[in-house]
């Protein structure tokens, strides 16, 4: 017998090696059990994630039959898991009019591996069990398993979001329409207000001329008052129309090259009556090298007159200084117009709201100082449209300095 030929040592060796193999097998079995346990825990975790997801998570087989249906899917679509599993997805959550397209898409993918709606977020209409349709955001991912495919779908009900978006869009459209209606109204009103007002101003001018010719001088001061009041009113109406044009984005600038000194002379002679009204003195300092600038002449004039008339309005028996000079900033020429007064000045808080439309420095000022509160808002906007700005420095009780800085943009610049 062969075994009887073996030595005792050989038998012991065989026994030991068999024992080692048994140990190894047991170790393998332990590993396998641990792996199974890990897998089970992992699956449990995945299941919990899917169960607790705020999105509906649905899985399908290659035939389009539902194989997984989480609680959120039950909530969103109204189908319980028991009812849903095994149903055809298309007949469960896709409205009838889209089913044919869904079916074609699925067949196309299975035949070619192409699916334009796969692996991306899309927004579509879904069907609830009770028949109502609602918007959802949907992601479908195909998963290859062996020779076939399964699909997982993540679906979020976006009814609320869509409603909020639509409400926002509607509110925006309504606000825009209201703003346009306001602009149109102001344009029409402006015409209706200005036409008769211009007749009042024009006829009072004519009467003044006629009174002068006829030697009836006693009528002239009264006629001048009518004309002056008419001009003030026209100024307020024009300010309101200007600000509405600026807000509607319909204000334009037409740039031309002009010599600065004649503009200053013109502005000074225009503002003279207002300077005299509060017993103020006007000092004008123009640098020798002012030359020309390229800007909208009418609008520069308008901004200067607004700053000067404000200075006159808020200063009594004081000095108003208009200084104009040319400065080089980074080799570009700028023109600076400085209007300084020795008037009531402002606090930092008052200065903060200065360039907002419909604001005077404060509400009580509205009582004492008349005006639309639009002048500075208009001036600032038109200076910005010409590439410049207005800045302000002020000390309460001591006076203010407003500076218009505009790029010269002329040949020398």
């Amino acid at each position: 017998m062969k075994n009887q030929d073996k030595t005792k040592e050989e038998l012991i060796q065989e026994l030991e090696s068999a024992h080692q193999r048994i140990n190894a097998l047991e170790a393998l079995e332990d590993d396998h059990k641990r792996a199974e346990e890990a897998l089970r825990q992992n699956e449990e975790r995945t299941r919990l994630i899917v169960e607790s997801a705020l999105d509906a998570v649905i899985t399908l087989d290659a035939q389009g039959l539902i194989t997984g249906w989480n609680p959120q899917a039950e909530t969103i679509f109204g189908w319980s898991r028991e009812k849903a599993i095994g149903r055809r997805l298309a007949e469960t959550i896709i409205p009838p009019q889209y089913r044919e397209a869904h079916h074609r898409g699925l067949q196309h993918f299975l035949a070619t591996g192409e699916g334009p709606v796969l692996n991306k977020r899309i927004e579509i209409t879904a069907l609830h069990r009770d028949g109502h349709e609602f918007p959802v955001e949907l992601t479908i991912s195909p998963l290859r398993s062996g020779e076939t495919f399964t699909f997982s779908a993540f679906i979020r009900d976006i009814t609320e979001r869509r409603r909020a978006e639509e409400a926002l869009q509607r509110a925006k459209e309504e606000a825009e329409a209201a703003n346009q209606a306001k602009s149109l109204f102001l344009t029409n009103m402006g015409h209706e207000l200005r036409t008769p007002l211009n007749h009042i101003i024009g006829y009072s001018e004519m009467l003044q001329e006629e009174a002068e010719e006829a030697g009836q001088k006693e009528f002239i001061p009264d006629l001048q008052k009518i004309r002056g009041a008419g001009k003030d009113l026209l100024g307020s109406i024009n300010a309101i129309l200007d600000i509405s044009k600026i807000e509607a984005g319909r204000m334009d600038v037409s740039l031309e090259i002009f010599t600065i000194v004649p503009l200053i002379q013109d502005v000074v002679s225009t503002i003279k009556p207002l300077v005299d009204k509060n017993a103020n003195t006007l000092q004008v300092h123009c640098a020798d090298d002012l030359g020309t600038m390229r800007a909208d002449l009418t609008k520069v004039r308008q901004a200067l007159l607004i700053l000067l008339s404000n200075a006159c309005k808020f200063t009594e028996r004081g000095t108003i200084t208009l200084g104009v000079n040319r400065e080089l900033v980074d080799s570009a020429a700028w023109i600076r117009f400085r209007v300084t007064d020795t008037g009531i000045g402002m606090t930092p808080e008052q200065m903060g709201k200065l360039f907002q439309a419909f604001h005077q420095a404060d509400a009580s000022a509205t009582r004492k100082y008349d005006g639309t509160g639009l002048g500075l808002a208009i001036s600032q906007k038109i200076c910005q449209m010409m590439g410049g700005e207005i800045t302000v420095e002020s000390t309460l009780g001591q006076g203010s300095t407003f500076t218009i800085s505009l790029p010269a943009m002329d040949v020398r610049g």
Partner: protein
Amino acid sequence: MTKILLVEDNEENRDMLSRRLTRRGYEVVIALDGGQGVAMAQSETPDLILMDMDLPVLNGWEATRQLKAAPATQAIPIIALTAHAMVGEREKALEAGCDDYDTKPVEFQRLLGKIEAFLGKEASS
């Protein structure tokens, strides 16, 4: 006597401008719409035309184009009177062939300066 054709549909504007121009020694003839303006420019041969732009029948731009296209009237200077509020009115008036423009409401002294500038030029040339 220097003759000015005023084309203006608004009664008050017409009245004011024509009276003030007449007082300064101009002969003023009046048209109430663009069509009449073109016809009177031909029949009256004015030295200068003041053309409102917003006119019935034929607007000021079209009337100007017709006048500037006709050999008999193309040399007559036309000053456009445009609405102050309107954006791009000046460019539109000059494109149509107007020689100058002024905004309404008319600032009479300024308009007078423009009229005299043209008629002076006419006389010296």
